[in-house]
């Protein structure tokens, strides 16, 4: 099990905060939420986040003011989250020291990916994931099992990376579809076809890693089912 990061989400919109927290939790992070600046300051000392997702439009002090607070109190990474999309605001956020900038409305998977990228740049999360004798490096796009590289298509690599990120957890076909293919297509057969292709390529080099959980979905797990 690789170490996942501690992420604090500061956002006053309940819906967005809850959704972002859920998505980051699913990606394996330990998460905490706050609705405004004072809540954030409490968590900075007690929760000690590796990364802060920070909304710009907040009641009281705004996100730029809170960015200073984060920078003074910790070395956490910061991803700004805002409805402002003016170039001036983006520049202001980045020059003020934000590590990345996501504009509302955003796709959750993109935010999760950006959080992961910032964590990797900070050295908080390795880009490789290991499941038994399978090693996947999402950044270089290489998957190796028992020392032998796997011949995967781009879609198959994305599928395997997603399952590896969710390793040990059962994921539904819908989850896989939305995470790997996005929201524009809906055809569960896609999942079945690609899962069996990946499974075949994995099993050339060893026992079954990608298991079917009847009625629920799939899980990537080393050892017995």
């Amino acid at each position, binding site marked *: 099990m690789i170490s996942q990061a501690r992420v604090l989400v500061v956002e006053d919109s309940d819906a967005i905060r809850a959704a972002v927290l859920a998505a980051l939790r699913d990606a394996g992070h330990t998460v905490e939420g706050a609705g405004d600046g004072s809540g954030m300051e409490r968590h900075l000392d007690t929760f000690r986040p590796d990364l802060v997702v920070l909304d710009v439009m907040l009641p009281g002090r705004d996100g730029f003011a809170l960015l200073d607070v984060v920078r003074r109190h910790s070395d956490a990474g910061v991803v700004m989250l805002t409805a402002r999309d003016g170039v001036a605001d983006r520049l202001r956020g980045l020059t003020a020291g934000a590590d990345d900038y996501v504009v509302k409305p955003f796709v959750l998977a993109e935010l999760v990916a950006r959080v992961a990228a910032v964590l990797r740049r900070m050295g908080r999360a390795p880009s490789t994931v290991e499941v038994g004798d399978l090693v996947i490096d999402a950044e270089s796009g290489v998957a190796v099992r028992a020392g032998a590289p796997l011949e995967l298509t781009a879609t198959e690599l994305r599928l395997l990376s997603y399952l590896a990120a969710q390793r040990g957890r059962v994921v539904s076909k819908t*989850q896989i579809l939305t*995470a790997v293919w996005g929201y524009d297509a809906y055809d569960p057969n896609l999942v079945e076809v690609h899962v069996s292709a990946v499974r075949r390529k994995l099993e050339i080099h060893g026992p079954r890693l990608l298991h079917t959980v009847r009625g629920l979905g799939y899980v990537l797990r080393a050892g017995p089912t």
Partner: protein
Amino acid sequence: MTPALRTGSLRRRVIVAGVLVIVAVLLLLGVATDVLFAAQSRRDTDTMLRQRAQLAEQFVRQQIRPRELLRRLEAAGVNARLTLPDGRQFGDVVLPPGFEPQGRGVQRFDQATVLERPLPDGSRLLLVVDGSERNAAQQRLRRLLLLVGLIALAVAILALVVVVRVALSPLDAMTAMAKAIARGDRGRRLSPTRTDTELGRAAGAFDEMVDALEGAEHAARTSEGLTRQFVADAAHELRTPIAGVQAAAEAVLQAGPTGSPDERDRMHLLLVREARRAGRLVEDLLVLARIEAGLDLHRVPTDLVTLARAEAERTRLLAPGLTVTVGAAPAPTGERDPGQDAATALADPERVAQILGNLLDNARRHTPAGGTITATVRPAGPWVEVIVADTGRGVAAPDRERIFDRLVRLDAARSADSGGAGLGLAIARGIARAHGGDLRCVDPGPVGGALFVLTLPTTPNAPTVPVLPRHP
């Protein structure tokens, strides 16, 4: 449609007219001079002939011999013949063709003028003046007149061209400026030195027109800027709830089969809440657009106290921690039309309910628990006022007009308790004004809190600008 302006060349017209006048004057002058010259030279000849005839009579009386007499009478161009009573003739003359001897008098011919005169001694005198000299002089005069006339004409045309060009140069300046303004060089004016002249009037009218156009252009640009700002603000306001809807929906989709049902329910709740917020915002924007396009009001006598009670009841349900009271007050001055119901306005009850609802919502959001909201209805001349006061932190004086702008929140970063998008007060004021009334945020005095005064008319023809109300 305005007929097209006749725009023949003004310069050419002025020059042609000027030249025609000068030519006419010169012709008249030439003909008159010629005629006068001819008449004068005829008179001169006659006088000269008569004097010589008188001279001849004197010579005869002095017994001067005929030859001597003729020598004295003759001069250049003047010949004489003397016929004595005995028939002898002295002197040699050339008689013009067509001459008939008449014994006495003057006869004129083209080439000559002939005078006959009997002398006292019975002899007859014939004087002939050669006309070729006079004719040559007249010819010379005519040639001179023609030459001088042509020179005068040429000089006059030249002068006309120059003078017209100088006189019309302000028109060229106007043309140049109009072109510059058309190219976008705004703010330029002709500023004529005098406005009582033809060009001054034209230039003044031109400046006025440019003032009006630039004013209209400025107004249009301002309005366009406001619209653009509004659209940008509306898009920005919509983006937050839509981001919430999107994020919550994604979270529901991505929650695994092992996810907790409680968490999923919570997400569904948030999803619905954000969707409703976006829906309400769109609804408010539409209402605002309708107000700006002109509301269709169904005006009936409306009891404001009853309406205010209903809205207050709703507010109590939403905020049990607040005290909400509704009351009627007498007119501030005591004067009152006895037939008039103190709390009845001529208004569209549904729309007024919306105003009161928005005012109470606003008061509710800005009044902490334990506070009080008071709505008081009272007559004020041809109007009825509804005064809504709360015990919140109030509105700072410089913001009391600004809060009625669209999508305005007083905090730069949005305040946590505000559920609305900042359109409620703009809508309320828009509806009040559509009724011919008004809605204002006024100074609450030492009591503090926010104080809103809604003014609605009681008669169809109440003055449209209400008096500034005084406050308890």
